[in-house]
């Protein structure tokens, strides 16, 4: 392996790792248990449109819902069974809200159907068809962002992709699902990388893995040697949070600094999580849609820690019960890692494509929101910020309601919500919380502004229409008046002709009257029912 020059992003944090609790045992396959609840929206973009009916029997891999629009992704059945409902069900969301879900009652037979033709020889297949396959298979970013992968593969028009970056950094504490995946299925990951390179015509594939995962790095290097593809390079990067954030990882690997407002693809980089690459491989080479994912179960509140390959839609409570349950003093359940994950109010929510980790914390480890002291402007947050923001200033903006300044001058939307600022704050201020609030507030205002603009547009259009109609009516009236005037003027000269015409009409009317009278007398009394019927018809 040749030495790769690494770069250092600003700020960062070395949180306690807690990786060894869950990365020591192989991935276990969770058996289907309980009812599966599949949210129609497990990805960024529009919710999928259901294509099955309640009562219908479905087979494993069958599409339950189709992508609705360009940025959307379909949902497939993880096992065979009956669709028992399509209804609102609690989904994993910070506010604990419900969303439309397809509810599948497994029949235990796990009968599969082949929905896609396997393409082991994908190199002979046109990139556009491969992209369509990735889309049809419901592959989304499995690092947690769940952005539809096919959309990313489409890239930015006019900017060719030169480098595919496979993200195996897994920088969040506790989470080890990518670690285990890379150790056990390194070749699938790298083959997925090769497919992605083929689709976007890239000539390089960098796989970035934090150096706290030496086994994964060794496995990847071994697989790379087997594949003997000089385009692939496995790079061990220093362990520092958040090296797994896409722009930060690209910086570490290449020195490129890409702001949040620029897409990586605009600069020729395409980033995918290693699990996504493996899913692309399964979809293309084996023709399998995405119906399972690897989930890390860990934390001091979890009886047995490890990684599980879980059918999507399985309820977290069912999965955790199967894995051995909680410890008696469990106090907090977090979906995702401790830095960026969110606390679940209930474990009766399904495992979705985004669920990389279920972290249960026992009471001593579960921080309760402490009473925040005022900001003392010590600037630790700014020193830790990986995008060089001034969180202390953004806090003032958010508190003062100065969203304009937060957005324009203090670059609020560059914040990746990595949580470092809040983690290092000596005053224990929930900074990320304030920034989310400010962002939501700005979005809300923009929506209102859009609405107001629309209303104004409509109002103006209506006024214009009324004005136009009035004008048209007046024009018509004027024309008519002119016509009448002209007719009047013509009238005198044409009166002789008119008399003749009048006489002809009179004659015709009289003829018609006579005919009617004759008809009336012949029909009288003959068809009374018919007349009544006619009357009723009217």
């Amino acid at each position, binding site marked *: 392996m040749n030495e790769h020059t690494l770069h250092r992003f600003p700020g960062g944090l070395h949180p306690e790792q807690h990786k060894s609790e869950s990365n020591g045992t192989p991935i276990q396959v969770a058996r289907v248990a309980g009812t599966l609840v599949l949210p129609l929206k497990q990805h960024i973009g529009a919710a999928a449109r259901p294509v099955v009916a309640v009562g219908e029997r479905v087979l494993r891999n069958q599409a339950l819902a189709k992508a609705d629009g360009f940025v959307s992704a379909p949902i497939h059945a993880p096992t065979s069974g009956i669709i028992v409902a399509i209804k609102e069900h609690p989904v994993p969301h910070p506010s604990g809200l419900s969303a439309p879900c397809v509810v599948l009652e497994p029949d235990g037979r796990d009968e599969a159907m082949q929905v896609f033709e396997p393409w082991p020889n994908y190199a002979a297949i046109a990139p556009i068809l491969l992209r369509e396959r990735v889309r049809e298979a419901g592959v989304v970013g499995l690092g947690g962002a769940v952005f539809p992968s096919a959309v990313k593969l489409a890239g930015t028009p006019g900017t060719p992709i030169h480098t595919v970056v496979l993200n195996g950094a897994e920088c969040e504490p506790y989470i080890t699902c990518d670690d285990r995946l890379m150790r056990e299925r390194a070749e699938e990951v790298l083959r997925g990388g090769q497919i992605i390179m083929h689709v976007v015509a890239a000539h390089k594939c960098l796989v970035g893995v934090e150096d706290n995962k030496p086994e994964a790095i060794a496995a990847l290097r071994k697989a790379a040697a087997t594949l003997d593809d000089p385009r692939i390079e496995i790079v061990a990067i220093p362990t520092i949070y958040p090296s797994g954030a896409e722009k930060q990882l690209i910086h570490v690997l290449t020195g490129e600094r890409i*702001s949040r407002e620029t897409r990586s693809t605009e600069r020729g980089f395409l980033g995918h999580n290693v699990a996504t690459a493996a899913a692309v491989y399964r979809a293309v080479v084996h023709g399998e849609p995405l119906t399972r994912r690897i989930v890390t179960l860990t934390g001091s509140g979890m009886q047995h820690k490890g990684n599980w390959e879980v059918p999507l839609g399985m309820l977290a409570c069912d999965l955790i019960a199967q894995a051995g349950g909680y410890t008696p003093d469990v106090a907090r359940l*977090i979906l995702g890692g401790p830095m*960026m994950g969110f606390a679940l109010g*209930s474990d009766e929510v399904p495992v979705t494509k985004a669920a990389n980790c279920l972290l249960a914390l026992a009471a001593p*480890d579960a921080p*309760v*929101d402490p009473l925040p002291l*005022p900001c003392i402007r010590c600037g630790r947050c700014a020193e830790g910020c990986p995008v060089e923001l001034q969180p202390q200033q953004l806090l003032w903006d958010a508190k003062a309601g100065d969203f304009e300044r937060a957005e324009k001058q203090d670059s609020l939307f560059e914040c990746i919500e990595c949580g470092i600022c809040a983690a290092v704050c*000596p005053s224990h201020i929930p900074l990320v919380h304030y920034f989310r609030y400010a962002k939501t507030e700005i979005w809300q205002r923009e929506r209102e502004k859009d609405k107001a603009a629309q209303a104004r547009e409509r109002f103006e259009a209506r006024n214009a229409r009324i004005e136009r109609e009035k004008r048209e009516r007046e024009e018509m009236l004027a024309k008519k008046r002119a016509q009448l005037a002209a007719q009047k003027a013509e009238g005198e000269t044409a009166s002789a002709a008119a008399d003749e015409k009048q006489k002809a009409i009179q004659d015709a009317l009289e003829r018609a009257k006579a005919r009617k009278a004759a008809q009336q007398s012949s029909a009288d009394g003959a068809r009374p029912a018919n007349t009544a019927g006619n009357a009723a018809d009217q």
Partner: protein
Amino acid sequence: MRFQTTASPHVAPNSEVGRLMRQVLLALVPGTAAAIWFFGWGVLINILLAVGAGLLAEALMLAVRGRPLGPFLSDGSVIVTAWLLAVCLPPLAPWWLPVVGIVFAVVVAKHLYGGLGYNLFNPAMVGYVVLLISFPREMTQWMLPHGVAAASLSLPEALGVVFTGQLPPGMGWDALSGATPLNAYKTETGQGHLLSAIQQSPTFGMLGGAGWEWLALGWLAGGLWMIWRGVISWRIPLTMLGAFGLLALGFHLYDPERFASPLFHLFSGGAMLGAFFIATDPVSGSTTQRGQLIFGAGIGVLEYFIRTFAGYPDGVAFAVLLMNIAAPLIDHYTPARVFGREAGRS
């Protein structure tokens, strides 16, 4: 199963205001010990008086403002303020001097501006300047350091002086007090004396003033420890001492008989204490990283000019307060550069 929800990140915070303040207090120990050694029990009495009165004033203001006493009293910020003010005051000053200073600092400079985190000016320096302007006689009666002074006082004797103003029988102020090295330097160069002659006086030591240089070394040690522990950043101390030292060097090279060497300046008066403990107050200082460089350098420059050309022998307090005024402006003009923005523009 139901769970309580909290906002991310779900990790125990790795620092705490109270712990930061306790670390600052710990870093104050070497310099304070040197001060007590060279200037006697009066230093300790000042600290105790200021801390006691400060805590009382803080509790009173918190109660008046309806704020919880527990978390705010235990944050330790008022102890730091009081301690810093106390070590700037002449030992053996009348008891009410530190009390008036700290009460003004806490009530006016801190709480009338909104309490912890909201004060525009460094409270300790506000208290110091109020005392300096209001009570110039008490504020300039400095002790001679141990080894230079003709006499020293025991703890009971010192207490007697502080609370009654009466020296022990048979002892005169002349035996205890005298001009500080900076004062001597200022008045004598003002009279046209040559530095080489002035520095023959026993109040001058190897680096700065006799005794004073040990205090400076103590503050320096505490300051370096704080940088090492990440309590403060290097930016403000380095740029402040750097700008101050460079200016002193320039003037000294221009006329070594009139302008003292940078070493003398750095190791006399409040330069070290100011650089590591006072200018680094985060609340009233600049908070952006580039801003801190400007803020520190500004204090260094102002300090030198006030010391050398203005009416006061030392200028740390005024320099810090003047730059406190400028801090919001500096922050405004040194905004975040933001990762990737610079490349995005090119």
